[in-house]
């Protein structure tokens, strides 16, 4: 035995017992299961190590795992053998285990090879303790304690940005809890938290692919905002989105809710096979559903059984068959839809229809035959009599008028189930190929994660109820983690998208389960869960950090300090508009087109153009900005916003020079700078310090504004020398010179405000 190994054994002798699901399962998953796991097609030597019985059964003269006897367990001996033919993992797999991992496997077997399930598949039970006590438990291991609370101004800004995505407006000295309650009750709350749902639902205002034509999805967006503001519990939210149409006498709102899964893309490209893209959409719905609620990746089970998690190829298509019974079929008209005409619109369509019918009759009489639409196109001035040509033209224009009247009506794609007689037979798609279908399957939920709740039907209603059933171990954990990550910048499970065997283990498992239990047992109330978290001392810690803190908890995964991170794409913009006073608080309705550089929309066939909005619509919240999948709003993409093509579980934050160019030069930030400059001048106090106070929502520290005052003085001198530049800058920002202020002064204050809106502290949640 080598000296190093002796040393390792000596060290490990003092360590706590090996925990299978925490310590060993990840090693087996990453290194063994690809060939010895759930996927029967890839399985080598007919050996599977993901099932206890198989792993502990003697076979061909060897036992993979013989409890208590690592030297006689081939799972261990094959890791350390010098015989290349015996060695596992085989060299061609390019996988190698670290010596510490091999030692863990050895110790686990030596300690009795106790089996268990992957941690996230175990039931959620509420642990003893509070957020703070469970965080402190972990911090104590690192010889750390909770940090003192942040200042009240910092906390007010933090809370307001976290809960509403807007800076605080309320300067009254409310106590902390009252502030929490008022923010949770504000309408801005739903607008901010809806963004999370929009990312998950791959929401966009266009259909995707080549033509990427527009479509009306915004009523669903407004449904989400309203639902969050009303604190609709997650179980109901789930049921209505997945199966609102199947509920008894569904309301209009419940039908709109089902647009959640109509956010899938549809391909209007000429020459496409509609069935191909319908199937692609259904698969997207299967994958998205399991991603959003259970944090598992289904994608690979389309072609073969999952290599690491207990989801077989058949399981995939059984779940698929539940979602495979809706009427939508990648048709250009996106049917079925829910129409929401106003009374005026109904009248307009009626009168346009009447007019068209009358003209058609006249034409039929005049020409002596019933002309079809295509006959109208074959206008022939040489043979048509003048009155017939005239009538044809009139019919065409009446037809266009009817089309236009219909297009005025808001109609949103929704779910509608096929009648029983027309339901599709689902078969397994061989290697995921929809043209190569094999064995038929019956519908079922994933068998490894609990049964359908008592009495639930085997359709989308049952699926929804199963997802939010008490016994489902994943849904509450996945959602609690997601909410935590939005507040702390990093999830307790960092891989928010993967709670399976290959995901990262939770940094604080008990805390995760506390939050999960709190959410589930508290009636799935998002507002309650948020309040539970933000009332903790952990949340209220100051974010200042020290070398020792960074050393012990480099990424703040243990919440050893207050979180500090750059604001999200929409919040960066909304905040600049809010502090400058430009932000429109108009809620809901069709998406808007704030200014973007000309010529970005050059899609292949879509004739729609981007027309920069005027007035209030220039300055609506980012949530309302038109999202075209193939050409998303550029500044949001630069700040890591998504394009709404596929379900986006988390946005990975980046820090790039292109972001600097946006906040320095995008017209919306220049307009905000000018508006802020005017507010600074009107503040009645020293403008630079006032600017800091307005933007950062805290009083300026003594001398803090000095660099800004110097900047202002230099800029003013420059503008005085070059007055045309002052005029140009003011014109660029579309602002008016405040009364009694000279152009060079105002221009210099705009430059100063532009600087404030680019401060790190401004772009950051502290």
């Amino acid at each position, binding site marked *: 035995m080598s000296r190093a190994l002796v040393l390792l054994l000596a060290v490990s002798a003092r360590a706590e017992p090996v925990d299978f699901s925490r310590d060993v399962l990840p090693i087996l998953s990453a290194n063994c299961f690809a060939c010895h796991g759930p996927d029967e097609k890839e399985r080598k030597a007919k050996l599977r190590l993901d099932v206890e019985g198989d792993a502990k059964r003697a076979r061909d003269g060897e036992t993979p795992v013989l409890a208590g006897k690592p030297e006689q367990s081939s799972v261990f001996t094959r890791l350390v053998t010098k015989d290349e033919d015996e060695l596992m993992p085989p060299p061609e797999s390019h996988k190698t285990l670290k010596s510490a991992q091999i030692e863990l496997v050895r110790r686990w077997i030596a300690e009795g090879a106790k089996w268990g399930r992957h941690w996230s598949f175990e039931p959620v039970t509420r642990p003893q303790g509070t957020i703070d006590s469970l965080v402190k438990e972990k911090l104590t291991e690192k010889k750390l304690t909770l940090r003192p609370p942040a200042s009240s101004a910092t906390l007010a800004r933090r809370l307001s940005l976290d809960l509403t995505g807007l800076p605080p407006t309320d300067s009254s000295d409310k106590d902390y809890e009252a502030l929490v309650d008022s923010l949770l009750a504000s309408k801005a709350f739903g607008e901010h938290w809806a963004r999370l749902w929009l990312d998950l639902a791959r929401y966009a205002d266009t259909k995707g*692919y*080549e033509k990427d034509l527009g479509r009306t999805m915004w009523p669903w967006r407004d449904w989400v905002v309203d639902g969050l503001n009303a604190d609709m519990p997650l179980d109901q939210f789930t049921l209505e989105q997945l199966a609102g149409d199947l509920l008894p006498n569904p309301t209009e709102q419940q039908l709109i809710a089902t647009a959640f899964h109509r956010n899938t*893309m549809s391909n209007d*490209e000429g*020459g*496409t096979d509609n069935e191909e893209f319908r199937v*692609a959409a259904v698969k997207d719905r299967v994958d998205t559903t399991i991603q959003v609620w259970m944090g598992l*990746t289904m*994608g690979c089970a389309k*072609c073969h059984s999952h290599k*690491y998690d207990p989801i077989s190829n058949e399981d995939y298509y059984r779940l698929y068959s539940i979602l495979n019974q809706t009427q939508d079929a990648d048709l250009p008209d996106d049917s079925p839809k829910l129409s929401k005409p106003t009374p005026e619109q109904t009248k307009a369509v009626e009168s346009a229809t009447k007019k068209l019918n009358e003209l058609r009759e006249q034409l039929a009489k005049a020409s002596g035959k019933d002309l079809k639409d295509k006959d109208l196109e074959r206008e022939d001035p040489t043979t048509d009599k003048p009155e017939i040509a005239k009538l044809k033209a009139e019919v065409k224009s009446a037809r266009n008028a009817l089309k236009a009247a219909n297009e005025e009506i808001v109609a949103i794609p929704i779910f509608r189930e096929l009648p029983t007689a027309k339901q599709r037979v689902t078969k397994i798609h061989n290697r995921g190929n929809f*043209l190569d279908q094999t064995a038929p399957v019956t519908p079922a939920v994933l068998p490894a994660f609990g049964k359908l709740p008592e009495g639930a039907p085997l359709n989308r209603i049952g699926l929804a109820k199963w997802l939010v059933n008490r016994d489902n171990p994943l849904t509450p954990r996945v959602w609690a983690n997601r909410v935590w990550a939005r507040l702390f910048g990093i999830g307790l499970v960092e891989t928010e998208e*993967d709670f399976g065997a*290959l995901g990262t283990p939770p940094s604080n498992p008990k805390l995760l389960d506390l939050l999960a239990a709190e959410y589930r047992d508290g009636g799935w109330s998002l507002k309650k869960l948020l309040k539970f978290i933000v009332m903790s001392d952990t949340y209220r810690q100051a974010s200042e950090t*020290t*070398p020792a803190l*960074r050393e012990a908890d480099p990424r703040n995964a243990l919440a050893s300090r207050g979180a500090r*991170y*750059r604001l999200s794409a929409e919040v960066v913009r909304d905040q600049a508009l809010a502090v400058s006073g430009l932000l429109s608080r108009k809620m809901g309705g069709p998406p808007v087109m704030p200014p973007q*550089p000309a*010529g970005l929309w*050059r899609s*292949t066939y879509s004739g729609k153009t981007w027309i920069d909005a005027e007035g209030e619509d220039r300055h609506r919240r980012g949530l309302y900005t038109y999202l075209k*999948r*193939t*050409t998303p709003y*550029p*500044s949001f993409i630069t700040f890591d916003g998504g*394009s709404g093509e*596929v379900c986006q579980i988390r946005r*990975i*934050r*980046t820090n*790039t*020079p*292109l*972001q*600097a*160019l*946006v906040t*320095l030069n*995008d*017209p919306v930030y*220049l307009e905000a700078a000018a508006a802020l400059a005017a507010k600074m001048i009107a503040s009645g106090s020293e403008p630079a310090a006032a600017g800091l106070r307005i933007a950062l929502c805290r009083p300026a520290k003594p001398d803090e504004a000095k*660099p*800004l005052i110097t*900047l202002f003085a230099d*800029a003013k001198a420059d503008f005085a020398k070059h007055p045309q*530049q002052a005029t*140009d*800058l*003011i*014109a660029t*920002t579309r602002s008016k010179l405040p009364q009694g202020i000279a152009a060079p002064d105002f221009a210099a204050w705009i430059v100063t405000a*532009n*600087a404030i809106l680019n*401060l*790190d*502290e401004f772009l*950051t949640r502290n």
Partner: protein
Amino acid sequence: MTPDLLHARAVTRRHFFQTSGLGFGALALNSLMADDLKRPMIPARAKRVIYLHMAGSPSQLEMFDYKPELQKLHLKDAPASFLEGKRFAFIKGVPKVLAAQFKFAQQGQSGQWMSELMPQLAKVIDKISVIRTVHTDQFNHAPAQLFVHTGSPRLGSPSIGSWATYGLGSTNEDLPGFVVLLSGGKTPDAGKSLWGSGFLPSVYQGVQCRTTGDPVLYLSDPKGMDRVMRRRMLDAVAKMNEAEHARSGDAETLTRIAQYELAYRMQTSVPDVMDISKEPEHVLKLYGAKPGYVSPAETSTDDVRVLYKGDDPTFANNCLLARRLIENGVRFVQLYDWGWDHHGSSPGESIDETLPIKCQQIDRAISGLILDLEQRGLLDDTLIVWGGEFGRTPMMQNNVRSDLKKGFVGRDHHPYAYTMWMAGGGIKGGVALGQTDEFGYYPVENPVGIRDLQATILHQLGLDPYRFHFSYQGLDNRLIGPTNEGKVLKALLA
């Protein structure tokens, strides 16, 4: 590669952060920089790539794949073997066979067959490896383009340029590592998803540089703010950010200070590199480039294809820009030229009228690029890839017409065999890989899949296509997909 390792890279990336003694920073553009850490995994033959994509898909049967047998069947019903069990985008029933519409001849020492449409390229054909048997499993534009560029026909996967910059970084601190240039008047069918970073961090997405307006969005300072003023403003911001860093101790703030500096430098460096008027006359001539030219096709809102002119230099300008960009350290330059979808349903999309115009637009430009790179000693380690997303059928598209009418000659989408080529970057010259049957319908020798092409491109860049991956959603995602069907095209390697 795990997110942890990415973090570690971001941290160790620059001396600036190493010496600051601070914790982890978020991903920054400079995590793409300085090649010290981003070493190739295997010996690299190419340091950079210029990928020329002809969006819409040119006809291999009019350019590279010489099929005299088609002449015998010209305007006759297509044989049943062409049609049985096939899905087409537009063809219904029994279409007529269409012979090559242009003359072919053997070119160069290697004697490769080429049509008369690319006379300049014919002169450099001995520097090129032509692959006649590329096949794909997608026959609609957007999914097929996505498959070629991201390895998946659906949206959401990183493009090959993102993979390359993720694997290798950029070598110029003042420029993005992955740049995209467009021509043909439209964005390619699958839009910006073709240069998106998918599940890779967004720093790896392609940056579209434009030849009109700001070359990079929001690059210009607002009217009225000169460089001195901008400098002063950034100095004030930096000063206050340093104070914020002293208070918070957050390394992100230092990264932000550095990014604002980089943005300031990009405001000069990008317009500088994008300014082709600095090129001498003989170089402009070599490509057929014209500085400052704005094509009517780039601004019209009508069908731009009817505005195409053979001497439109937009694509040539982009080829010259590509050379300037890679010369300045950009890792991956992707050109998309739209307008190659020649169904025959209108003169703007016909093989007889528009294809020659499109060929004229690219012929001198591409041969000029190859010669220019060679003269500068850059061809050896710059890989050039040319092709569309699929090929075109040996038959006419019978839902359009079944006779020859001027301006209405066309072919449907054909995924089973088409031509692409590669040059430079450790690829042999004068090779013709693969053989199709007498009608150019199927490969009969050396079929080459999209995954083979992707494996080969990565391999030339020194990235092992089988091991090079990014862990996301519990999967080790790779450009070449989950199976190992993609093989490096050894026959092409010099």
